């Protein structure tokens, strides 16, 4: 498994960190430290060809920033990004264009991501031309455009090419945005909440489209979402982020069915479930033990994040160690003792790690 993973790894991020500076207030001008928002801290992830990796977290957990850092729309504060094992250091220009050819981003809001003054034809032909896939003649360009729209199932293509974005529905716009990303013939697709702005009735259609594209084009997909249920449906691997840090990761099925980190459990329990009516939030059954009803609380300030584990002020299992030391990744043992790739950044699993080692 690990051997295959190493072979198909396309895009890797290690220790990815992004701090946004805040406007200095009076005291800081007089010699204090400039304050920063710790949007993303030490995020490590690997994207593989033909696999979907979901990044799950609540609003403000930094998951969209990870996508923008990977797309090089923002410059990282620290850490490294490797494409095919080669460190990428891009500030713009031709190198950025070459990088964009492999890594493409799909934006969350299809109502904002298409320029209202350009037709679908213009938007898509630019994307083709920038990466040299437009062909030599007009006929070749038309053929490429038709293929592109056919791929996202906007047919007949002629009906859509002359349209302006405002003449299309949300789902159609998102398909055009996906087509624009595909025009570069990328290897990696970063999908930043691609369905969260769409009507519930058409979400599944767009998700299925992304999955088909992944399979046909053998793409590596980073699927960013706040909806852990869709991650289970769509992704092979799921990573959970909280307050700018990764807290848990592993195969989607395991992470969603046997969440290890207390935050993941809260997240899953916070999803409305008709079968749990009346039992309240934050209540979870672990080893037959019912914990008390927990207040979900609020995500912490990212300007002055909590020390140690960032979840400790809200955690029902908080220990002394949690507020002082940042937990590393610990392997989560499988209940049946089978080998597992699930991990959690939580001190709860520290002892088992030690005993297993």
């Amino acid at each position, binding site marked *: 498994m690990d051997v295959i993973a190493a072979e198909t790894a396309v895009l890797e991020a290690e220790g990815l960190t992004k701090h946004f500076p805040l406007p200095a207030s009076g005291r800081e001008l007089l010699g204090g430290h400039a304050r920063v928002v710790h949007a993303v801290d030490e995020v490590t992830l690997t994207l593989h060809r033909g696999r979907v990796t979901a990044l799950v977290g609540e609003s403000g957990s930094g998951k969209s920033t990870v996508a923008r850092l990977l797309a090089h729309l923002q410059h990282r504060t620290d850490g490294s990004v490797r494409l095919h094992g080669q460190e990428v250091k891009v500030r713009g220009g031709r190198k950025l264009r070459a990088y964009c*050819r492999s890594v493409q981003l799909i934006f969350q809001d299809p109502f904002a*991501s298409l320029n209202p003054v350009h037709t679908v034809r213009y938007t898509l032909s630019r994307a083709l031309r920038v990466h040299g896939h437009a062909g030599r003649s007009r006929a070749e360009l038309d053929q490429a455009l038709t293929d592109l729209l056919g791929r996202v199932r906007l047919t007949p293509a002629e009906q859509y090419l002359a349209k302006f974005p*405002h003449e299309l529905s949300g*789902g159609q716009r998102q398909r055009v945005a996906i087509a624009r990303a595909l025009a570069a013939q990328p290897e990696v697709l970063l999908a930043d909440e691609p369905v969260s702005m769409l009507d519930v009735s058409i979400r599944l259609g767009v998700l299925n489209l992304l999955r088909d594209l992944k399979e046909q084009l053998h793409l590596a997909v980073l699927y960013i979402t706040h909806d852990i249920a869709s991650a289970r449906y769509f992704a092979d691997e799921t990573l959970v982020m909280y307050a700018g840090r990764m807290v848990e990761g592993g195969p989607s099925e395991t992470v969603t069915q046997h969440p290890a980190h207390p935050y993941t459990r809260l997240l899953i329990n916070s999803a409305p479930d008709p079968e749990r009516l009346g039992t309240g939030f934050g209540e979870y059954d672990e080893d037959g033990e019912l914990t008390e009803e927990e207040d979900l609380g609020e995500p912490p300030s990212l300007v002055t994040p909590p020390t140690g584990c960032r979840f400790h002020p809200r955690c029902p299992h908080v220990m002394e160690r949690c507020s002082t030391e940042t937990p590393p990744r610990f392997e989560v043992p499988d209940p049946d003792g089978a080998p597992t790739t699930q991990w959690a950044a939580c001190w709860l699993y520290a002892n088992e790690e030690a005993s297993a080692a």
Partner: protein
Amino acid sequence: MRPNRFRLPRFLRNHKAAAGALILLFFLVFAVIGPWIAPYSPDQTGTAIVVGPSSAHWFGTDQLGRDIYSQLLVGTRGVVVVGFLAGAIATVLSMLIGIASGYLPGRGGESLSVLSNVFLVLPALPLLIIITSTQQSNGWVVILVIGLTSWAWNARLMRAQTLSLRRRDYIEAARATGESTSRIIVFEILPNLTALIASGFIGTVVFTVLTEITLAFVGISVSEWNWGTVLYWAQSQDALAQNAWWWFVPAGLAIALLGTGLALLNFGIDEFVNPRLRSSGPARIKTATGRRVRMRIGFTPVTGAPGELVPALAQDPEGETL
């Protein structure tokens, strides 16, 4: 309808734009041919003093027996040339400074913004009065002073709009596609500013024309003929008290008409560059049975005969993939 019938450019198919362009064309033609077709020299005096319109003098004469029709015709060129040149100077300056100060990060953008704020508080009209009364009054001085002092307001508007555009998703998307910065500014940001640039240009032209006429009216630059000069003489000779309406009404109407034409053009541009304001096709259509139906948004008229199928207007691909 013949297939190869002459078709107007899309912009002029808009009624407002067409009307505005027609009015503007009217004045442009007179700006060119005015001095040639004027029946008299505007300074040529005569014996018929302050007489009303006649076949000899279409718009009557003034207190020296000069022909007012000729004065207006000759004056059109000055009005149009000064208006458009000063408007062009101000628009180019406001584009350069406004977009640069909006797109450049940090100090550079800030200092350009400060510069436009300084120019914003410069009072253009008093400045003009001072400069033109000390200098040998010359059309170029008026053009340059108006052009160099009236760009700041539009520059601020463009900076604000650029600031709001540069973080939009579609600009970021263009960067993620791999477009270069210059291409993003020219092809992604600039088209979204077209309405602002065009209306800024036309607004400055209106402002310039009015400023020039005001200058002439208060008696500062009366050496060259324009509509303001006519009004200046009408005012100083008490045309109203003499019931000499022909003296000031044609000049006033010309100013109003030019202003209207420019404003109509402005509305037309606005509808043209904003696809959302564009109406798609004629609002009234004729059905197969010869009845006329008015199309409205959100309303699909069902006009087929009973049993006849009305084809769906559009197909949504979402339905198939679900």
